[in-house]
């Protein structure tokens, strides 16, 4: 039992270290490229409830978390001095414009396609290897902004029974959520920043704790933020 718990703890630790890593495009790091304004692409969150009888979807909670998480990220980025646009692609806007909805979905698909490779070798973001291509310019709302933000999160919420079972047998005793944030150049599609924080809790609850995780995951991005630049000038 002790060996099992230690093993799980070691895995969690390793995972956490990896999860804390943040990856910046060389141009962003060197200051050659500056980001001042960010357009939020609709977040995609998938939460499932895992119990002793298997898994159940949490579609409603996922939907709400998409909005909450975007709002938390928005607050964090605004605090860093970024101008954020969360309204241009809000659900109400997309409901009225199916062409825009398809364009957004196309870019989301493109990001997911690139995400598969970024997930494998995230450190190559630092070599400027990943791009969505200049198709990102097809997004009309992207015209006046420097970057697009893609948000992905998926999480497992364990029932009480499953947690108890975890204590005794499997070692999985926490709710868990993996998030992935990608900041993409709105002009040429280059992935400028990528982070994949991990949260050991139910993402649908307690947005204050989520804010802390989000803040940490934008730590390196903050170095290139307008607020940082302004304080450096002073």
């Amino acid at each position, binding site marked *: 039992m002790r060996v099992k718990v230690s093993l799980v703890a070691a895995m969690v630790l390793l995972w956490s270290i990896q999860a804390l890593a943040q990856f910046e495009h060389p141009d962003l790091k060197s200051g050659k490229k500056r980001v001042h304004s960010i357009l939020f692409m609709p977040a995609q969150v998938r939460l499932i409830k895992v119990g002793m*009888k298997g898994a159940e*979807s949490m579609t409603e909670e996922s939907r709400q978390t998409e909005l909450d998480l975007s709002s938390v990220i928005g607050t964090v980025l605004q605090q860093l001095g970024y101008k954020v646009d969360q309204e241009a692609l809000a659900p109400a806007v997309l409901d009225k414009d199916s062409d825009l909805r398809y364009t957004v*979905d196309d870019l989301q698909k493109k990001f*997911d396609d690139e995400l598969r490779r970024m997930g494998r070798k995230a450190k190559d973001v630092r070599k400027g290897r990943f791009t969505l291509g200049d*198709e990102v310019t097809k997004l009309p709302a992207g015209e006046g902004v420097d970057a697009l933000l893609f948000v992905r999160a998926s999480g497992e919420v364990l029932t009480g029974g499953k947690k108890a079972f975890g204590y005794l047998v499997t070692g999985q005793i926490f709710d868990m959520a993996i998030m992935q944030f990608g900041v993409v150049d709105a002009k040429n599609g280059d992935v400028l920043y990528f982070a994949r924080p991990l949260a050991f809790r139910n993402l649908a609850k307690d947005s204050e704790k989520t804010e802390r995780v989000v803040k940490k995951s934008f730590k390196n991005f903050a170095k290139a933020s307008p607020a940082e630049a302004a304080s450096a000038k002073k």
Partner: protein
Amino acid sequence: MRQLAGNMSVLLVLLLALSCCCVGQEPNGATAVPKLPETNSGTDEKLASPRRAQEFKFTKVDFELLKQADAFDTYVEEKGWVYNDPATNAYLDELGSSLVPSETPENVKWRFRTIRDLEVNAFALPNGTIYVNSGLLSRMESEAQVAGVLAHEVTHVVNRHGYLENRSARKKMVAIDVVEVAARAAGYAGVNLAIVNAVGNLLPMIVVSTMFGYSRELEHEADVYAVNALQLRGYDLREFSRGFELLRKGPEVDLSKEPVFWASHPKLADRVKYVASKAAQLQPDVTSLRIGEAGYRVATKSAIRNNANLALMLGRPRTAAATAQRLIAEEPNNADNLALLGDAYRNLGARTPIPLDEELTDEAKKEARKHIRKMTMVEYDKALLANAHGAERWEANAALSEETYRKALAMDPNNANSHRGLGFLYERKDQHTTATEEFKKYLELAPEAKDARQIKVHIEALEKAAPTAAPVPEHP
């Protein structure tokens, strides 16, 4: 334990896959399929509900799944995954409605929708929504073929297969791992599994069955119903069988390890046999049977075009080329169709339009999978170009592309898409001045185009670059 659960789930997936293989054999009295009058003329005769639908009693677990299915419908709509073309929707609704039983089962509302996904697949949710991927619509050639697919999926709803599988899966604690394994098994290069993953996350308990097939008995039940329904509506059963064949012969090299159900080769082979034997038995006279090629093509062309553009964007130019050729066959005088084909040829890069035999060996597939998993689209294209014959193939594709755009312009000198395509082609060939001219013509003809800003960026870059400078990276 986790490892054990993982192993068990692999086993479960394998068992599910194996269990779906031999659908050509009649299971002994296990099916619950209605006896339908045997007729080969399209009639208004009602389809009866299978026995199982009448016997089914809803439990709390079933209601929960129903709620999840409804939420899934809203979710995919909001995300822009559903292709809402009025013509395609109306067509699928009408076709699907003709194939459902006269009595609508409790808690079922029939809806037939196209989902924007390149996978050749269709799936049904227990609430009566049947999704047909645009990838499948693009591969099918007639109404009779799609009718077979829809009738098959209708059975899964009517006979409550989703609920039954859900109940059964709940008995197995490893369900969540099954989702992971199933997604991993198919999640390979070139395979866009957005929908599989989404269903896996949103409706985890039934993902394996909806996407990768139900048990042998249930799938057979669905085929038997489909055959009867097609027979009753006067469709040519040979078309259903031919549809299976079309599903097997895709324009891309199939790199998935566990194909989704409708593209699953070994299972399809058995199903082809079954339907062919039924066709021979039930429809000796083929003269008055319905096929519905022309109507199908007209009604679905918008969805098919959308699928071709999706294929171009996601690095499947062979699919785009095959789809464009189909559109041209339907409307040979449409310059936009030719421009689409030109785009597809241009995006082929160093690929041949049809896979070569050497690409179809297990070794080559393994290698391709590895490359696509590791390389970005741009890197993969470059690697192909560096291969033996790579440059030669690109030259051939570029020539074909140019010729096709020119044909389109001969047909319609104001075809904006052809000018756009030529712009990209010349840009890639380092012919900066001509490229700029073509892009400018495009903007003149389509100043409000969605990609106007993208094209302006290219013009700007081309005008800045010296004629001998390296080409601007192209992102079609």
